[in-house]
């Protein structure tokens, strides 16, 4: 299974949740498969999906899922100690670990070699770290949402991409509709 297969399986579970989605193909795939006001698509700034998700989770009560990639976590490794030491139980970091920089042509990452992101997350102090296979992603995500405990999921899968259009939506529109939806649900 590749990332787009995982996203397809996750959609029934996360479609109604607030999702911060990683730059490039992950956002483009999610946008094509299930565009929702609850999705925040990153159009720039590789590596910050987990940081944006953490900031969002810390200041309000709705569940926040940050969809990240192994390459992006490697880019912003400092995020894991920050997450570990600032626990937000409404936060789930879901790392698609396909061992490659998918959006730039599947160049291999160190996470696909000797480096274990789940072990790094644990060493950083993250308490609920689950490494799973692609086929288990939806069930693991369902349990993580239900647990109301901050959870880091490292989902191992194969590298590979499907053809997807770029996102042409204006960034301010993406951000504004996301904020309006969050505000409406938080008031309700």
């Amino acid at each position: 299974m590749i990332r787009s297969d995982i996203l397809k399986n996750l959609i029934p579970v996360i479609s109604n949740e607030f999702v911060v989605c990683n730059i490039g193909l992950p956002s483009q795939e999610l946008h094509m498969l299930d565009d929702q006001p609850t999705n925040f698509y990153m159009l720039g700034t590789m590596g910050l999906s987990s940081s944006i998700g953490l900031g969002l989770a810390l200041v309000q009560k709705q569940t926040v899922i940050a969809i990240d990639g192994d390459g992006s976590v490697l880019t912003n490794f400092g995020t894991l100690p920050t997450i570990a030491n600032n626990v937000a139980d409404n936060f789930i970091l879901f790392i698609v670990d396909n061992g490659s920089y998918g959006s730039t042509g599947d160049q291999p990452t160190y996470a696909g070699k000797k480096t274990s992101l789940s072990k790094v997350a644990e060493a950083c102090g993250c308490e609920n770290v689950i490494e799973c296979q692609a086929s288990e992603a939806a069930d693991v995500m369902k349990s993580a949402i239900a647990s109301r405990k901050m959870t880091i999921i490292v989902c191992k899968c194969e590298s590979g991409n499907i053809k997807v259009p770029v996102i042409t939506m204006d960034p301010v529109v993406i951000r504004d509709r996301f904020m309006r939806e969050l505000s409406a649900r938080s008031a309700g």
Partner: protein
Amino acid sequence: MSVNDRIVADFVKNKIELVTTVPCKQLAGVIEKIDQSPDIYHIPSNKEDEGMGICAGAFMGGKRSAIIMQNTAIGVTVNTLVTLTQYYRMPLPMLISYRGELGEPVACQVEMAVHTKALLAQLHIPTYHFHKEQDADELDAILNHCFMCNKPVAILTDASFWKGY
């Protein structure tokens, strides 16, 4: 009231509830006050772009935030300022120690100081320079301005403002 207390009081007055910091010797006092403030959630960052991501998330969650960092961070965060903070039109007060100005003992700091204002100007970031303690009288208005226009705003604070190193 000490200048550090005044800065924190203006943050609180402007409803800033989350502050992320990457330390600098000059900022040690204000970071300590931020950490002690019952009105502010202090979240230290490991790198300034990470902190800007956290601030972006906090803004989308409906809370005002700010970052405290050294001017070297402008070099680190150009891409984040442009493709996250500015591209999505988000406010971000940046309280910045302006290292490398008069009185600086570390020569290397001057290398970044000479680029700091030029970079901020190139990025079209409204920039204010606190040189004397009374310059901090404008902080309240600067923060108000930042949240009014949804832009990153830089407040450079030099060694004279902090009364030496």
